């Protein structure tokens, strides 16, 4: 058994997390407690996350994305199928604490995941649990606070921090356990726009500089445009996956799934529908400006050569949209 795991591990060397045909059912009881109803939260999901990757899982409410996230560090165990984290099966009790140390998790509500009354003590909570010696805890806490930019607040009470700062403390708490990947379960859902930016920035830095694998679960489209890969879930199934550009070039399909696309992408899509020559899957404002300028330039040259605008409609559309 042990052998087959390592062999398989070698074959799939780059996969830090593997989800094999996972199904998860739970029972809900009616008020009288008699009739049990089985809900299929996850209905057969297969996915692989590569080491060092920034992956995002999207889906509207009730799509099963949070349930899936809780499978990735053994908070929930699949009804059928298996989840492998760095080659360890989450159903294997023996590796439970190894798995949770390797796959750290940050939750939605910043207040409900901070344990201690002082920032640095909270960051030290994880290392304390896995039995790291005292001196080493102090180094790790210092490093983790540094990486998340929270060093200045190390002796503060978490109650006096903003939402974004609290989430950064939570991320530091996970980082201090030296995980190979971090799962963030809607970390920005309860934050204001500034806090959201702050948290996403911190997460991207960790991914880029520390090489930590990030799995971001969210329903804010703007947060995922920098991801390496996007997975989209709907009704317990994985319905789309690909790079942000691949995903966001299918605006209509996303709208069918009741998902938003970033504002810029939608504008580009509408312009394209109006007959402008703009590529699909535009993600940033810069890209759109460049595309529009190119068309405007073409139009200008056309005017110069012919003395009239070749396609006056097109120019008007651009002018309208640019206003």
């Amino acid at each position, binding site marked *: 058994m042990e052998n087959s795991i390592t062999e398989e591990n070698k074959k799939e060397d780059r996969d830090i997390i593997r989800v094999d045909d996972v199904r998860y059912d739970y029972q809900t009881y009616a008020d009288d407690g008699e009739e049990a109803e089985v809900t299929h939260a996850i209905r057969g999901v297969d996915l692989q996350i590569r080491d060092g990757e920034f992956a995002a899982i999207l889906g509207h409410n009730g799509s099963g994305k949070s349930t899936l996230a809780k499978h990735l560090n053994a908070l929930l165990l699949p009804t059928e199928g298996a989840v492998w984290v760095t080659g360890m099966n989450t159903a294997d009790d023996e590796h439970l604490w190894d798995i*949770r140390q390797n796959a750290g998790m940050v939750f939605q509500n910043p207040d409900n*995941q901070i344990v*201690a*009354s002082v920032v640095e*003590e909270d960051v030290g909570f994880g290392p304390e649990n896995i039995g790291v*010696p005292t001196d080493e805890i102090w180094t790790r806490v210092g490093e983790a606070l540094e990486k998340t930019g929270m060093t200045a607040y190390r002796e503060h009470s978490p109650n006096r921090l903003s939402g974004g700062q609290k989430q950064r403390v939570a991320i530091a708490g996970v980082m201090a356990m030296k995980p190979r990947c971090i799962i963030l379960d809607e970390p920005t859902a309860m934050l204001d726009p500034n806090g959201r930016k702050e948290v996403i920035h911190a997460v991207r830095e960790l991914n880029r500089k520390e090489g930590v694998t990030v799995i971001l679960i969210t329903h804010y489209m703007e947060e995922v445009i920098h991801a390496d890969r996007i997975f989209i879930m709907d009704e317990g199934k994985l319905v789309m996956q690909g790079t942000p550009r691949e995903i966001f070039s299918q605006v209509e399909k996303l709208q069918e799934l009741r998902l938003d696309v970033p504002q810029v992408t939608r504008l580009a899509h509408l312009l394209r529908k109006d007959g402008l020559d703009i590529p699909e899957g535009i993600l940033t404002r810069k890209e759109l400006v460049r595309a529009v300028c190119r068309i405007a330039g073409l139009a200008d040259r056309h005017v110069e050569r012919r003395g009239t605008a070749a396609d006056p409609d097109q120019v008007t559309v651009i002018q309208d949209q640019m206003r």
Partner: protein
Amino acid sequence: MDKNLTIGQYYPADSVIHKLDPRVKLIGTLLYIISLFLFHTWGYVLGVGFLAVMIILSRVPFLYMLRGVKTIWLILVLTMVFNLFLTQGTILWQAGIFKITYEGLSMAVQLGIRLVALILGASIMTLTTTPNKLTDGMESLFRPLKVVHVPVHEIAMMMSIALRFIPILMEETDKIKKAQMARGADFESGNLITKAKAMVPLLVPLFVSAFRRANDLAMAMEARCYHGGEGRTQMKPLRYESRDYVALAVLLAYFGASIAVHAALGW
């Protein structure tokens, strides 16, 4: 609601007493309370003198400290009055059924001193120790009870989590209260029973939310590998320093002296 609310009544200052190990302070408070019950008559001079030195060393303003006594003034007055008038003995003064005896006067004064010293002694500990350190100290002192299966670590963890969540829940109470008031709830008028009934729409959502928070927190703790006190290391372990040994020596000397005056001189 006050976000900066301090639980317990920690008074931040830079003093020898503040720096002492919480275990020393816990033991000291216990010994001091025992010593107070040993004294009769002149022994109190020793007790009060010791207390005065501690108060000066703690650098907590005396008036601030007296706030603790304010909460028990009724008990204090009643105890003293009852003892003053109801003790039998040599009559000093009499008017109708009221009489003051020498023994009653002595008893009233002694009890008064004892109660005040008790409160002040205990508040030196709470005023100079943060709730977290106090919890750590208790966990460490009660660790031997693990042998008889008292979940010492778990109790300490519960206490420190409770301390962390008190301000959050207070803020939440305030929010719910305002939300209910905005929809016409009346928490102010009526008699006691009406007021108590008015609390129901406040308490129900508060409890629901507290349970939800507890659930979330438990999951977050598990995700961070919390699995009880076993195999757990500490970021800030308690270590006795030389000043703690000095303090222990002083305490034992004081305790020895109080036993000596009690046994040898009968004070």
